[in-house]
């Protein structure tokens, strides 16, 4: 279409070069973990595995995929992640949109209430006591409700609403008799698909990756999120000393490095696939022709 300037070409090369290096830097460590998960246990113990499997075998995956509790945890985690994301997006929209209306009385108070909680918190013990008093302990709701309200995401959404939706669109809609909520549903949301997709991703990944709450709130193994199981698997190895000393020295109380690696892959791949699927929403929201005047 347009003639390519030589400076453009140099720029292109620079871009691709930088990106390829960055991509490799991010990919290689993952490759390493994958290789570990496909290697033999002794090769891994001897720390002989770098980028390619040594003693290729699928034993670790056989164990992990054949573990019913892992599979069940996977589905349970997907389930609470979806619920969490829906609730989170609902709350974020309900919070952000009214705050974009500059004439809203109490706007700054509402905003400050949320911002304050980004920096101040009661602490793990009072939060634990609260969850217990609400009767949410050891249920899936304690993994969904407490963190669903994210002031951080709300601020991002509010900023996007304010800066990327042209005021003129809203003005003309108002003149046509649209109520505030109509504007939200008919104009603002459809034009915000990129940021809505982003925040959904933030919610989903946020829920998927956390386990600190489940670590203390959940005692029923059927309700362990996948990352909690992974945390145990990765951390439980501790030192040989603790293992042998405390576990009576029987045959199978080790957590082989191979199993750790396979579990990391198992717990991480599902969520990684969400973004490529969401990428189609990252095109601009539908703009109805040029807005002149």
């Amino acid at each position, binding site marked *: 279409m*347009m003639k390519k300037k030589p*400076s*453009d070409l140099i*720029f*292109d090369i620079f*871009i691709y070069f*930088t*990106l390829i290096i*960055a*991509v490799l830097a*991010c990919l290689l460590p993952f490759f*390493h*973990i994958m290789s570990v998960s496909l290697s033999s246990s002794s090769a891994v113990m001897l720390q002989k595995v770098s980028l390619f499997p040594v003693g290729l075998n699928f034993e670790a995956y056989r164990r992990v995929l054949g573990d019913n509790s892992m599979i069940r945890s996977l589905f349970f985690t997907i389930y609470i992640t979806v619920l969490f994301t829906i609730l989170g997006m*609902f*709350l974020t929209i*309900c*919070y952000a*949109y*009214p705050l974009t*209306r500059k004439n809203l009385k109490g706007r700054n108070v*509402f*905003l400050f209430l*949320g*911002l304050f*909680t980004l*920096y101040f*918190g*009661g*602490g793990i*013990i*009072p*939060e634990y006591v*609260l969850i217990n008093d609400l009767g949410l302990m050891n249920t899936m709701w304690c993994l969904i409700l*407490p963190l669903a*309200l994210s002031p951080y995401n*709300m*601020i991002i959404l509010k*900023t*996007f609403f*304010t*800066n*990327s939706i042209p005021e003129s669109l809203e003005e003309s809609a108002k003149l046509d*008799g649209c*109520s*505030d909520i109509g504007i939200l549903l008919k104009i603002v949301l459809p034009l915000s698909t*990129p*940021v809505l*997709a*982003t925040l959904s991703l933030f919610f989903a*990944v946020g829920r998927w990756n956390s386990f600190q709450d489940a670590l203390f709130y959940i005692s029923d193994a059927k309700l362990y999120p996948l990352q909690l199981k*992974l945390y145990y698997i*990765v951390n439980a190895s501790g030192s040989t000393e603790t293992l042998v000393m405390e576990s009576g020295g029987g045959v199978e109380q080790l957590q082989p490095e191979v199993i750790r690696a396979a579990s990391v892959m198992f717990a*991480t791949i599902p*969520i990684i696939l969400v*973004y490529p699927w969401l*990428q189609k929403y*990252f*095109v601009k*929201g539908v703009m109805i022709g*040029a807005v002149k005047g």
Partner: protein
Amino acid sequence: MAVTNAPNVIENRKNLSPNNKIRKFFIYLKNNYWLYIMLIFPIAFLIIFKYIPMYGLTIAFKDYDVIRGYGDSPWIGFEAFKEVFRMKDFYKVLRNTLMLNLLDLVVGFPAPIILAILLNEVTSKWFKKISQTILYLPHFLSWIIIAGIMYQLLSPQTGLINSIIIKNGGQSIPFLTEKWHWLFTYNAIGVWQSAGWGTIIYLAAISGINSELYEAATVDGAGRLRRIWHITLPGIKSTIIVLLIINLGRIMGISFDRPYAIGNSIVLEFSDVISTFVYRIGIQSVRYNIATAVGLFQSVIGLILVLLTDYIAKRFGEDGIF
């Protein structure tokens, strides 16, 4: 649809007697009740899950023990704070926290922006999609895993990189074992872990820029760099500023996992931070009031910084958070 009760009509009324004020208020409510109904949900969640446990902040002022219970724990005022401020180590970890965070800010904040811009300039769709997905992979690894990989890569003798250097007759580089090198390593690993993920929000913001602006600029003969400078960057300016403000507010806080996993006793002078300090003194020694006091200190500074930078941003004519 009714048009008569548009808000700007109300604003023009000159009559402001008490009755009219109340009437004005109710008309305002009638026009905007939807907005308040919407707000009920998030505010309810805020109050229940964030503000009810807020009393925990006062643990910093009490000689708190879980066994005695909150009510029976005596009030000690600022004693816990005084105790912390008297500890020599506190100032060391404070300095380290600020140092590590500032470094992260200076290097780690622009990194995703630059990456996002570069990605945006890529024309090949499949390259863009694949590299985006790969770039954010490190975000999903826990720091323990990352530390394990880093040790295999960067150890002074047996690490992959150094063993190659030594074999070729060079001197090993103390990535992890000399405190200034470690600073660089800590920072680089942090950028590696978070930059890819950080591009997502900027890419979303970039996609909100009107494409016509680009077409118009190209027609005017602007090259790549000028388009980036005059269109892309200004287009995401508000996002950048908001994120900058929030991150500046976090300069006193620091996660636990990253310095704990990547740090080691050789470089403890730099790797000991507020979070590891609190873990030792507060949590492990079961002195929750110390832990809370330090946390409160961090929070207050954080909030002041946020409000301050928001104010400064406003003075420069930008939209801040408020």
